[in-house]
């Protein structure tokens, strides 16, 4: 649900990074935070356990610049990937404008990817959204690992509707900004229809 503020001439959009536990959602946000100039970002807030697993969400506000006289603000959120945090995951999807699904390329995590994708579809539905129509990008993360499944095999298993798909290695930033741009672009395109 985009928030269009005519008074402040701002558009605020919410993007959620989804995916199984330890797939690299938080790492995506950390990289974006580290590489964005201070004037364009707010604080990165991480509500995490003592072992750095996301407990509720990470939050990063970003200013991308001006379109048609409106400042574009993106609020990036991650969900907690661990299966038993489903209630919290659902809450974070409230009012979402665009979703990034971060998949873990390791062979051993393929089932977890599929399960998380199904969970995303179900939780979106409960908020009245449809994965088939919402701005959506797939990221194949952890491409650097030797156990990574071939990208085209992952594409076959996880690509939902021909959405833009990027190979990534989040800790070094490979694919991170391409992913963000692709989803932000779709979200802004949606505004045209409104």
């Amino acid at each position, binding site marked *: 649900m985009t928030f269009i503020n005519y008074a402040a001439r701002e558009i605020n959009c919410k993007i959620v990074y989804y995916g199984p536990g330890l797939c690299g959602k938080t790492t995506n946000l950390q990289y974006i935070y580290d590489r964005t100039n201070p004037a364009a970002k707010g604080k990165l807030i991480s509500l995490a356990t003592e072992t750095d697993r996301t407990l*509720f969400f990470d939050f990063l506000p970003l200013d991308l610049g001006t379109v048609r006289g409106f400042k574009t603000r993106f609020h990036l959120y991650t969900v907690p990937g661990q299966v038993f945090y489903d209630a919290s995951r659902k809450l974070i999807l409230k009012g979402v404008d665009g979703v990034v699904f971060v998949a873990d390329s390791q062979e051993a995590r393929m089932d977890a990817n599929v399960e998380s994708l199904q969970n995303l579809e179900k939780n979106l539905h409960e908020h009245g959204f449809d994965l088939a129509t919402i701005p959506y990008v797939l990221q194949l993360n952890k491409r650097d690992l030797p156990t990574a499944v071939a990208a085209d095999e992952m594409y076959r298993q996880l690509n939902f509707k021909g959405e833009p798909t990027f190979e990534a290695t989040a800790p070094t930033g490979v694919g991170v900004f391409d992913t963000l741009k692709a989803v932000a672009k779709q979200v802004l395109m949606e505004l045209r229809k409104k």
Partner: protein
Amino acid sequence: MTDFVLFDEEFQQIKEVIGRLKADAQAKVVFIVDKNGQQIAAQGDLESLDTTSLASLTAGNVAATDGLAKLIGEKEFPVLFHEGEKDNVYIAIVDQRVILVIIFDEHSSLGLVRLRVRKATQDLERIFVSIQRKVEEEKERRHEGVDSPFAEITDEDIDSLFRE
């Protein structure tokens, strides 16, 4: 799903209401956030305050408590109160859709804040109803062929955002 829209007229009215609330309740800061964590307006000593983070955490807090309420069969908890050593935070849900946050210290009291919030809530509800009506009128106008300011966003506009 309809977007949340804020027009200048209502924005000024909202600022007026929360400015008055801040004075009447002798609070340090009053601000308004939508349930998705977007800040709508704020009044008070904001210099030392990261209002963007505050907005997101408040919304997260309310979302979690809403979840809790549903679990035990309540519709919502309309008021949340956090008491600190110096500062206290009073959170009230307005019109089931926006969140009113009041930060106050020993210059005020819970009783006073509660009292003043009740009045302000009614004023705010009226304003949000009026915004809703405007949005619907706007939508109808658009069906009659008046475009939204974003109808002409081009690929180039968007690409230029990412050029560095």
